[in-house]
Every structure is written in C-alpha cells, then in structure tokens.
C-alpha cells in the first residue's frame, strides 16, 4: 500500500523553501554564458543560502583540463562577473563542489564520466540527487546531447528528478523548432524540459502579472473598448559587438521578437489564469499566441518593416554601419531593426493594433510595454495654451529604470483651464530600495525547484514561430538592400508606415 507523505510543517513561513539536493550539470561550462551568467548566478544563490542543502556542479566542455583548473576558471568568472563581491569562504566551499569532465558532446566517454561522477556524489551523500542538465551550448548540440543522455539512461532515475534546461534559440523557424521539440521529447517528457527565456526572470515582467491581476483598477479597462493600441519596444544602444557570426544568421526578428517580445505580449494580453501553476499560466499564454493572426506573405510589406543600422554616432563616437562590422557577410540582408503590427483576434483584443519594435544601435537602451488608452470623447478644456493633451498611457518599464508609469492630464497652475500631461511613477528603486536578483538566479533556482511557470512550453514556442515564419518566408523572397538608419538614431523612418490611424511611436 502506498504511504501518503505528510507535509513538512517546518517550511511554513519560510521565504526560502527547501530545494531537493541537486547536481547541476552544465554543458558548455567554459563558454560565454557559463562564464558571465551561470557561474555568477550559482555563486549568488550560494551566498544567499538559496542553493539546495546539498549541491554539486559538474561542468562539461571540450577544453582538456583537470577539476582544479576548472575551479580556477570558475573562480575567475565569479570574481569578475558576480553582482556582489564574493565571500572567500563561500566561494571556496562552492568550488569544492565543482567537478569537470572534458570531452566533446558526441563522445560517449564523456557521458560515462558524467554518470560515474554523479553516481559517486550520490553514493557519498547516501541519497539520490536530482539532476539538472543545463545546455549552455550552441543550439546545434541540443539534439546530440539529449540523445546521448537518453542512450546512457541519464534522462530519468528512480527517487529523484531529472530536468533539462535549454537556452534559446529554440530553432530558427517553425520546422526546426518542431524538429527540436520532437528530438527532445523523444528522450525527455515535456515536464522535464525547461526552455529559458531570461526576460521572464526579470522582476518587472513578473510584476506585469501582479499589476494586471492584483489590482482591480486595470481589469475593467483592459480590453478593446478602452485600449487604443499597445507598443512593445526593445531598443539597444549597442551594436552586435563580437556576435557577428550568430547575429548575421539570426537578426532582430529571431533574436528578440520571436521569443522575448512575444513572451511580453502574452503576459500583457493573457486572460487571468485559474492559478499561478506553470501549466495554467502557460495555457493562457498559448491561447494569446494562437489568437494572433500572422501576416500573410502579401501583408508582410504593410505590417512589417526591417532595416539595418548605417554608420553614425553612438556614445559620442563614430561607429561603423552593420555591413562594415567585422564578421558580417558582405551584402548581408540580416535586419538589425524590425517593427511590426500584429492583432489578437479574440473578444478582448479584436481591433487593437499591437506594435512591436526591436533594434540595435538605437539612440537609447530601453525595453518597455506601453498601453495607450483611447482619448476621451470630448475635451471641454481650452486647447489654446495647453500642451498637447494626450491619451493616458500605462508604461511598464522593463529596463533600465524598472517600474510603472501612468500618464495623466492635469491642470497647469494658473487662472486659466489649461492642461498638460503629467506622470505618476512607480519605480522599483524608490519603493523597494533593493537590488533585483539577476534573472538567471531566479530561473536556475526555479529549475532546481521544479517550477516551470517562467519557462516556455513546446506548444508556446511553436505557436510563436508560427507567427514569425510567414515574415521570414516573405523576406527570403525579397533579397533587396534593406532600408538604413543612422546608428544612434531612433530607427528608420519607414517604421512609421505600419502605424494606423495617426498613431505614433513612443519616443525612445
């Protein structure tokens, strides 16, 4: 007869609930992501006492080195990139838990070593650790690694959980995303797979859910009757840096819109979930994606604009254009800027234009969601001397100034009834005065905890590619030179052409 496990009464009231002992296995353990993000995030979790009570880390990469050499590498990475100065004693204890396996990802011997070390760690503790395999590698290795884990029987175990974390990009179009999902799901179950979109680990993004569903003031207005349009912006002031090889094959649509911006849109537009369990939230997000009518091939030119940055001035310096960047293919038609207009065909959102734009080398770094309400039907105040009465806007600032801002119209002090827009601001810094944890800290902890709420599900990823695919297809048939915008500018003038009914892009 099965025994019913009683709840742990000691966890009540604790902010950090227990996480089952875990061995984290990072593929690509010497890569840029591991160095800049994963290892510092693991350290910060250790510093705060948030890691599982018993924790090990195994790194795998091609570099031929010993455990101690990897520990030195990890130490340097943590010291360089951690958001806080490491405590020597904690760092030293964490490094003691690290092991390293040299090998290529298709080498069965590497998996044999992983299994052997992981088993040794289990035996030493006298218990079965959960295992989290983190694929911080080039996407071309995802299938190979998953398959090899399956062949070695490392995809599941008795009395403990096995999870697989996959970094974006999840495919480069709908077909490749399906192929990747099929490959992963031939080894792992969907509940074991955690597809990371680090935007979802940001506090402001999570707060968008609280703002919508924890405040009665917004819900009555959150529909086509009151909302005029939505603008989602991810503007970067930097260029492609050293990522030419990746970026030239990807472009802004794949790199930002297909994942980050569509994820932001789902959170903004979803119906209230029954609960905040992973599947309830993701069910609602997928419904939004399914309700988006992608542009047809013919509509792409009216609804989507792409462009490349030309030379210009950024941070007071002359900078080259995209085509002059080192590593970019001559005559490349990869877009560094994309703006598009979508619509959500459901009762709540029908007819509300959703504008999105993402670009590099723009005048400012800003990521935000702007919800513009419809104007009042009649303005009784005098317009003469008033400073442009504008409809109310609710702005969710994702970065750099995390917070929420609501624009209102107020009377300008004086004898006459003149008005101008003013802002009500909620800034994280002023209300919490605390540093938000890095998105990766939250997400790594969630994978160890087994909470998939902030991770993309297979159908979500495929639905997002379904929206983007026709655009990619249309572009593939149109190889002409792309419109250019000066580096350091707000973007190409052509972006205005997709706006409807006198709408304007928000100033960056």
């Amino acid at each position, binding site marked *: 007869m099965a025994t019913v*496990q009683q709840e742990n009464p*000691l966890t009540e009231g*604790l902010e950090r609930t*227990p996480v089952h002992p875990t061995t984290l296995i990072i593929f690509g353990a010497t890569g840029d992501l591991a160095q800049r993000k994963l290892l510092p995030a693991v350290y910060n979790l250790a510093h705060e006492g948030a890691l599982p009570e018993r*924790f090990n880390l195994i790194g795998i990469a091609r570099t031929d080195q010993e455990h101690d050499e990897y520990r030195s590498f990890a130490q340097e990475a943590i010291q360089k990139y951690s958001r806080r100065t490491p405590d020597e*004693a904690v760092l030293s*204890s964490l490094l003691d838990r690290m092991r390293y396996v040299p090998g290529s990802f298709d080498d069965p011997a590497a998996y044999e070593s992983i299994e052997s070390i992981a088993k040794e760690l289990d035996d030493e503790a006298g218990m079965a650790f959960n295992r989290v395999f983190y694929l911080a590698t080039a996407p071309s290795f995802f299938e190979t690694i998953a398959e090899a884990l399956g062949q070695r029987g490392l995809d599941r175990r008795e009395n403990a959980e096995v999870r697989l974390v996959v970094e974006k990009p999840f495919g480069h179009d709908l077909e490749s995303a399906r192929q990747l999902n099929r490959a992963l799901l031939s080894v792992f179950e969907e509940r074991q797979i955690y597809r990371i979109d680090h935007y979802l680990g940001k506090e402001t993004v999570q707060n968008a859910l609280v703002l919508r569903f924890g405040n009665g003031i917004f819900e009555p207005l959150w529909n086509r009757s009151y909302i005029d349009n939505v603008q989602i912006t991810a503007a970067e002031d930097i260029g492609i840096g050293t990522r030419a090889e990746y970026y030239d094959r990807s472009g802004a649509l794949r790199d930002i819109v297909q994942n980050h911006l569509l994820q932001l849109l789902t959170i903004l537009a979803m119906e209230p979930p029954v609960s905040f369990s992973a599947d309830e939230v993701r069910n609602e997000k997928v419904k939004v994606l399914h309700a988006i009518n992608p542009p047809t091939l013919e509509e792409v030119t009216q609804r989507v604009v792409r462009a490349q940055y030309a030379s210009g001035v950024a941070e007071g310096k002359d900078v080259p254009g995209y085509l002059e960047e080192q590593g970019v293919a001559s005559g490349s038609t990869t877009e560094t800027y994309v703006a598009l207009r979508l619509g959500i065909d459901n009762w709540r959102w029908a007819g509300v234009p959703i504008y999105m734009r993402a670009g590099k080398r723009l005048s400012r770094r800003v990521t935000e969601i702007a919800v513009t309400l419809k104007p009042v039907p009649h303005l009784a105040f005098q317009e003469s001397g008033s400073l442009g009465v504008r409809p109310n806007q609710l702005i969710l600032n994702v970065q750099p100034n995390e917070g929420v801002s609501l624009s209102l119209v107020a009377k300008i002090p004086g004898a006459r009834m003149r008005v101008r827009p003013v802002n009500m601001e909620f800034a994280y810094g002023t209300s919490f*005065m605390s540093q938000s944890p890095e998105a990766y800290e939250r997400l790594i902890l969630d994978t160890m905890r087994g909470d998939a709420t902030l991770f993309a599900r297979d159908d979500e990823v495929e639905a997002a590619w379904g929206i983007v695919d026709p655009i990619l297809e249309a572009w593939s048939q149109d190889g002409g030179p792309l419109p250019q915008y000066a580096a350091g500018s707000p973007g190409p003038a052509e972006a205005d052409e997709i706006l409807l009914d006198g709408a304007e892009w928000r100033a960056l």
Partner: protein
Amino acid sequence: MTVEVWAAENTTPADIDSALRHLLEEQHGRGEGLAPARVLNMVAVVDASWRGEVLNRLERVGRYHPSRTVLCAVEDGRTTLDASARLSGDGTGDPSLISVVEERVDIRMGPSHLKRLDAIVDPLIVSDLITVVWAPHGHHDAIEAMRGLADVVLLDSADDPNPSRAISWVCRLQEHCYVVDLAWLRGTPWRERIAATFDPDQWRLALRQISKIVIRHRPDSAISGILMLGWLTSRLGWTPGSLVEEGGRHHGRARAGKVEVGLRLEPVPDLSAPGLGGITVETSDGSTLSLDRSQGGLAAKRTTRDGRESSWVVLGASRGEAGILGEGIRQALLRDPTYGPAIRCAGKMLS
C-alpha cells in the same frame, strides 16, 4: 551623491516638516531624475551618546534601508528640540537613470519628550507608508507613546539579559503591532536548514521521531536558542514543558504525543557573533543530525543508527550584524506567521 541639509535649534515639528518639504521641492526643481524613496518610515530612538554608533549601523545595512529615518537622540536634561534634515541621492551621474533620494531627520530631545513622541514625529513621517519604531537602548516609554503610529516595532529580544522578561515584552507589544525581532532573524538560516534537512521524503518521517534537541549558543544569546525550541515545538505540535535554568544552562522537556523530547541549551563561550552556534537533533532510532557554524556556511553531519557518518557544508555567507538589521528592516514589510506561535511556546516553557 547629492546632499541637501537644513538645521535649526529650538525648533518645532511643524518647522522641520516645512523644511523637509522645501528641501524636496528644491531638489526636485533641480532635476527630474531625482525621486524620493517611499519604502518605510523608521523612527529610531537612541541615547544621544550612542547616536553615531546607531547611524553607522544604519549606514551599513546594505540593500535594505528605510526611505525616511527620524533619528531621535535623547539627552538627559534637554528640554528643547534641535533638529537637522538631509536628503541624499544615490545618483551615479547617468542622466538616463533615476537617482533615489533618502531623507533623514535628526532630532535632539530630552527624556520628557518621549511621553509624547507620537505628537513630535507624526508630522515627520510619510503617510501611507509602514512606520517602524526601533529603540535599541531601551526607551520603552517611547515605544508605548508610538502605539498609535507604529505599525511595526523592531527590537532585539537578546538585548534583555532576562529571556523571560524579553518574551513578556514582545507578547505585550504583539497585542497592538507587528514585532520584528532580530534575535529571531539570526535564527532564520538555522530554521531553513533544519526544514531542508528533514524535507526529503526519506527523512521527513523522522520529524515524528525526534527524541532530543541540543542547541549551542553564545552565552548572551540564550533567547535565540529558546526561540528555536519555541519554533520547533509550535511547528511540530508538541506540548511545551518547563525549561529550567541551572548555571547558565537551560534544560527541559516537551511532549510529542506519547514521546518525551529532551531539550537542552548549551552556552558556548568562544562564539564571536551573537546567536546560535550549533544544533543537534537526535531521533528515537539513534540517528543524529548536527549543524554547526563553519567557514562558508553551516557544517552538517548526519550519523545514522548503524553508525554511518556523512558530512557536508550547507553554503551561505554570514550576514553579519549589519545584515541582520537590514533584514529586520526588510521584514517590516513582510509578515512571518510562525514567530508569534514560536514566542508564545517559548513563553510557556519559561513560565
């Protein structure tokens, strides 16, 4: 870092309030990137001779600090109020980023002012924010006076050498406000670790088999050990028995159904930081689990009934006393439902 200062002798709360408003207006007029922080008000009542030390403690709290601090320094014999106000921004000079502004009001007052402290500080706290009162040098009269204004009392029950008296005081305060106790917060990592250790399925049943608990503490931190026992007793549904002190050591029993649980507190003189030094939990089948302070976290050791031993370090940096105070400020904005039952159990053990 921008700093704006105003000061006056023999002043009034209304003048201080007006000066604060003026400073804020002036500062705002100079740059829209400056935004006053709005987290919580802290009213700190301190002995004037320790004012600098308290300010140093508040400066070092790290990530969590009050947005408006009203520091009341009490001087024997003083009959007038002298005050200063300052605004300081954390600006980095980057015009695209918001600079968060903190406000501090320093008031020098006499003991006679404390009976009506509420009337003095009421105009100086930001409405609609949580107000925390903290009196690290006693001044219970100030806390009593703040009953109507304070949402939270921040205290350290280890400040009173008599644990029984400390617990009674907390229980009285809890009748009208929320209490954040630094002695309780020092025990948080221990509670988290005990909970985690017994969380895996294979160990959870052992919670019902606990037969003995030994807690090691710094000699001046018996209250931390008593609170830990109170927590275990209340969470595990034990019936608390009496805890008796003999030669600085406490011992007693609790009843877990039909099983008696032995409880013991052992002072450890060479501990550098206040709070707990270690805890050992024994179960009726002869297994033990020990957690002890060590470099880089807590040293854990488990011995099973067949004599097998397993040791590991539970990672975590020491927060230090400054970090504990910062945590106290942060906890003023949260609610821990387990502190009240734990301290009431602890009170029963000492009664």
